[in-house]
């Protein structure tokens, strides 16, 4: 389709409607949260972040997110490769499974972990606590963002012939070298895009994390559960400040996404 400069009045009306809708839906809410956080001055925001519980919550969020994203990056990549390059019974079914987290309500994901590992769960652990502790949070974080890496890498792999990989392997390159020298240069933008989406989804997860016990102050509490508690306690400035921090993070995520998309578009 060719891009044109709008001339007729219906064109202007349509553009106006679209921009107004985006303004009301996206821009106003985004701007309001910034305004609300800074209304009492920057000092109030800064003071919020001196709270030791909040600092702990942010650290927990970061560390657990990095673990979950690493697991999904590694296994998501392997899964994409296996689904594209191998043929086996049940492949279609496994391919379908990848999309499940997209439609799986996150509190239900947390509920599944409770049923398995909770106090009266099927495999109630005796030595290592899972529920109301870090392992359960990592589990649900892995689950909610599982599809992204696989779904970004898969189409790129499909568009690549397996021949260079086969050739490299045949002339004696080992699997790791083949991956690093032949495959990675072709797929890294898609892989990175998938990782950024995974990060965005994982860092802001709330429903599942809250259900599996991610709200113990100074222990399992993370950024989102902190906001939820602050709202309940009517500690508005704290809630808005952390919301502002997560918004700032999402702006960075958006910019990275856009850079990567341009690269992907240029390649295609």
């Amino acid at each position, binding site marked *: *389709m*060719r*891009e*044109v400069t*709008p001339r007729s009045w*219906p*064109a202007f009306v*349509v*553009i106006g*409607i*679209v921009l107004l809708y*985006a303004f009301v*839906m*996206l821009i*106003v*809410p*985004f701007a*309001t*949260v910034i305004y609300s956080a800074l209304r009492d001055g920057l000092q109030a925001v800064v003071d919020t972040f001196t709270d030791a519980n909040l600092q702990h919550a942010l650290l927990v969020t970061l560390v657990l997110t990095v673990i979950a994203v690493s697991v999904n990056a590694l*296994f998501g990549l*392997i*899964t994409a*490769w*296996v689904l594209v390059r191998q043929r086996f019974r049940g492949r279609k079914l*496994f391919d379908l*499974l990848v999309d499940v*987290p997209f*439609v799986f*309500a*996150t509190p*239900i994901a947390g*509920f*599944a*972990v409770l049923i398995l590992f909770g106090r009266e769960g099927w495999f109630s652990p005796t030595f290592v606590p899972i529920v109301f502790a870090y392992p359960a949070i990592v589990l649900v974080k892995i*689950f909610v963002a*599982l599809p992204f890496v696989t779904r970004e890498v898969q189409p790129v792999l*499909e*568009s*690549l012939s*397996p021949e260079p990989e*086969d050739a490299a*392997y045949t002339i004696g390159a080992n*699997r790791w070298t083949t991956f690093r020298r032949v495959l990675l240069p072709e797929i890294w933008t898609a892989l990175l895009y998938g990782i950024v*989406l995974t990060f*965005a989804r994982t860092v*802001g*997860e*709330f*429903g599942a994390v809250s*259900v599996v016990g991610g709200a113990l102050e100074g222990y399992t509490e993370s*950024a*989102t559960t902190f*906001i939820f508690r602050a709202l309940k306690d009517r500690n508005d400035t704290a809630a*808005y400040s952390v919301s502002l921090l*997560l*918004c700032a993070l*999402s702006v960075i*995520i958006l910019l990275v*996404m*856009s850079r990567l998309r341009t690269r992907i578009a240029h390649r295609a």
Partner: protein
Amino acid sequence: MTDLSLELSRGRSGEVSQVPYGTWGLRLAALTYLVAFIAVPVMVIFTNGLALGIERFMTSLTRPETLNAIQLSIVTSLIMTVINTVMGTLTAYVLVAYRFPGKRLFNLLIDIPFAVPTLVIGVMLVLAYGPQTIAGAFLNDTFDLRVVFAAPGIVLALLFVGYPFVIRTVQPVLLAMEPNQEEAAHTIGASPWTTFVRVIFPALRPAIITGALLSFARSLGEFGSVVIISGNIPMRTQTATVYIYTQIEEGNIQAATAASAALLFVSFAVTIGVDLVLKRRLAGGSPHA
């Protein structure tokens, strides 16, 4: 040129590596990952539901609070899908067809809902359209319309969360469209409206349906933004996910079990149903799919 590369990629895709390297180790890793993290949770929820027994399952499911919550989820998601589909298609069209200042920035902002945590989306919307704001007070006084802590707020939150879905599925199809069809229609005297309805829309239909269904399925399971904006009032603003969350928090495991299994069943039915419909359509359908 395009045809040739398409032909080549068709020839390639579906091709399988000839060298049996990494067959078992990597396959085992991938399948274990999918089974452990996806098949197990799905089975746990359904097995747990079945373990209740039909009678107790039905008793929990037919509680007015449960039925009401599931109904509210479906109705708000449907309203959201209708609005989002129309506005999403229009937005994608404007983005591809017209040149206007600030377009690159606009294209960047469309993905905001992918990048912002859903809980924060709820906070934003309460702050922007709550009763204490200018917009919220205006709607309340003039139209007696409560947005926040009421059903319209839930639709608003779902619209925010679903904003990119239709746009991002329709946009690439529009970009890939050959301009000459449109020009031909124009040359033989079709108005822009006729061109859109008769030429552009039919080519877009599969992408529009896909985007609409994706956003619908996503909305049924949405939680973070809804729990904030709905105010969680039983029988009035409690959606299925918020209801399930509340039951778990209160230790009402039987109710949570039945509602979880039911909601998942509906979500899967929608997704799989859509998939089947689309495949049948596309079997004899347009080349733009």
